[in-house]
């Protein structure tokens, strides 16, 4: 008999039954007498289930405990960490609901996401780490060095071009040993008398080494080759020789 029919019999009286309920119960009871007999049976069954909850004797359980201890005597006692692992990894739950698996999944997700989140931050905070900017720094340093050299050359040219107006004006040029390829040239004929000094404290008198140093011009203007050269061999002047070898 279906549970619904039992509930109808237990809860209702025969005169309260609807036509559909009577149709359903027709197989079991067609009269009020049969209906009440069934009601008595099912009410008694419910009464038995409520009142007669039987409990086995304690001796039965003790005997079974002894059998269990004898059967599993070699198994070590359950330690606390076993129950801890049981909590973290309960085998009776689906794998996605086990706490240990959930923790592992979160950790894996963090490892996968972290590089994407932290990449921009690295670039913003440490731009000096970028290698592409290193040649630019070198170029800048080279540019500064070349500009310094150019300034020195321009100053020298300026001094030389001013010579016709100032006439035999002495100019002193401070040169560092690192200056390379310094060429003296003058676009117009001039008599230059200059004293060059180096940081090494070696001093060369250039006026004594000019080719054709004596001019016929009343004002002393020299007309001829604009190339200045030393008439004295460099090897005879150790200081000049050292300068040349050092620069070339």
């Amino acid at each position: 008999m279906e549970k619904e029919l039992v509930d109808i019999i237990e809860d209702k009286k025969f005169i309260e039954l609807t036509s559909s309920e009577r149709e359903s119960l027709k197989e079991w009871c067609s009269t009020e007498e049969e209906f009440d007999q069934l009601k008595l049976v099912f009410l008694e069954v419910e009464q038995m289930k409520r009142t007669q909850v039987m409990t086995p004797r304690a001796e039965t359980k003790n005997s079974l405990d002894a059998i269990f201890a004898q059967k599993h005597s070699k198994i070590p006692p359950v330690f606390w960490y076993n129950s801890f692992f049981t909590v973290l990894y309960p085998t009776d739950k689906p794998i996605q609901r086990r706490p240990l698996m959930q923790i592992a999944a979160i950790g894996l997700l963090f490892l996968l996401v972290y590089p994407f989140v932290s990449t921009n931050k690295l670039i913003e905070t440490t731009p000096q780490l970028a290698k592409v900017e290193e040649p630019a720094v070198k170029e800048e340093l080279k540019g500064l060095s070349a500009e310094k050299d150019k300034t020195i050359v321009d100053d020298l040219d300026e001094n030389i071009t001013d010579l016709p107006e100032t006439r035999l004006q002495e100019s002193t040029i401070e040169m560092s040993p690192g200056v390379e390829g310094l060429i003296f040239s003058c676009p117009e004929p001039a008599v230059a008398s200059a004293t060059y000094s180096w940081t090494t404290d070696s001093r060369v008198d250039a006026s004594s080494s000019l080719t054709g140093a004596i001019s016929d011009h009343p004002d002393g203007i020299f007309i001829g080759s604009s190339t200045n050269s030393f008439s004295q061999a460099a090897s005879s002047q150790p200081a000049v020789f050292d300068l040349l070898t050092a620069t070339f």
Partner: protein
Amino acid sequence: MRLFKAQHKTMTDESLMQAISTGDKHAFDELYARYAGPLLGYFMKMLWRDREKSEDFVHDLFAKIVNKPEYFDVTRSFKTWVYSVANNMCKNEYKKAEVRKGMSNGLDNHFSLSDKNSNVMNEVQDKFFQEAFQKSLTILDDKHKEVFSLRHLEGLSIKEIADVLEISDGTVKSRLFYATKYLAESLKEFNPVENR
């Protein structure tokens, strides 16, 4: 410790059986707490309300669970399995009772109990209705009694009863109908409508 106990409280019967096979005593205690009482009641109804025999059967059944947990098929329902084992134990007891009856001097302890109960039914009316019902259930034919007990007292479904008894659903319904009608008929004298 609270977590440990709560863990077993929420475990299914089948999971407890697996834990028992690994030597988990708490799992055995939990399974015993769940089924010892209902099984004792079932044996009481099936074994002529013999308390001693029913206690022994409960003990033997749980001893079987402890010693041979591998007999349980984890793909099956534990409830169905344990009641089928209990039912087979009752059937074996019926066979032994038949043999004892054939070897005895004609006295039958079980039917003497029923005769006594029939006297009770005749002597008392409403206030002994409960006892009369139990006795009516006791004298009911075994195959009908087991179906009625499993359905209405143990709460198994038609399908579960069919699995336990290894019969078809239709047979279960037929036996259930007969048992119910028989009990209703045997308790006719307590019917208030008829007594009016």
